[in-house]
């Protein structure tokens, strides 16, 4: 599954719900696979009493990873040339996130058809938690 330059146009969008009611356990699961055991993501006592946050919160990289899943589902496996984001808001347990891709440009680069994609992920209240961009190789 991959995208064809001939069937794609600027302004096309694709979106996916990438998590629903995010659990603390999924955050722990991500800590285990990524190796980032910062207690801010799993240790409620440390995070509220020492660091001064209202609750543990997700790794930015978990939100980026979930958003990346939307991208690979859209553009196909092994098609990304670049992917970058800014973490614009923290994601707390209970979050439901929707990730959206918008095609901003289709161009030829070194003999390949490339799509430039704007990426945005927001929570159920419409707060944007990730803003970014990606490029992907098209057929």
């Amino acid at each position, binding site marked *: 599954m*991959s995208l064809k330059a001939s069937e794609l146009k600027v302004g096309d969008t694709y979106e996916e719900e*990438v*998590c629903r009611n995010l659990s603390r356990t*999924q955050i722990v*699961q*991500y800590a*285990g*696979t*990524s*190796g*980032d*055991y*910062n*207690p*801010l993501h*799993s*240790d409620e*006592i*440390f*995070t509220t*009493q*020492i*660091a*001064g*946050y*209202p609750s543990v919160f997700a*790794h*930015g*990289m*978990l939100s*980026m*990873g*979930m958003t*990346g*899943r939307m*991208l*690979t*589902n859209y553009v*196909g*496996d*092994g098609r*990304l*040339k*670049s*992917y*970058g*984001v*800014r*973490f*614009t*808001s*923290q994601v707390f347990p209970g979050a439901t996130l929707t990730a959206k891709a918008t095609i901003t440009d289709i161009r030829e680069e070194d003999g390949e058809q490339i799509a430039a994609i704007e990426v945005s992920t927001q929570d159920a209240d419409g*707060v944007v938690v990730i803003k970014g961009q990606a490029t992907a190789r098209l057929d």
Partner: protein
Amino acid sequence: MAAEKFPVEAGHIMMFARSIGDANEIYYDEDYAKTTEPGGTVAPPTFVQASAQFDPNYFLRPKIGEEWFGSASGPTGITKREGGSGGGGGGGGLHAEQHYVYHRQVMAGDVLKATTKPGKSWEKEGRRGGKLKFSESVTEYHDQKGELVVTATSVGVQTEKPATS
């Protein structure tokens, strides 16, 4: 994130895919993966972050025999020293940006070497007051043949106050 040897393993990719809620069969079934365009188990786009597992000095992993700053019998496991400011280190740093450039796709079976060098740094006034100090680090992942596979640029921010948004 520096790692002399970051072996990219199919089992690790499967567990990583689970943790980001990605049900794509390519990460779970090697036989299926062989039939796809990448021709094998490809890593999810943010997988190289897991090279932290292979960085012997990664500071956000508890080290055997050392105090850990997360809670234990008290709210932090760091023993308060006389005259010191107490524990709780590591609470002020957050991840602000992450960028990847894929020179080729990372595949199970690759053995990558990660080398990190500092990038730019800058300061900004926060929305709620207090200075924000940004600093960039650039990690290059090279394969067995010495070819560049991924360039990862990470931007961290140190906040004077907890950065709740």
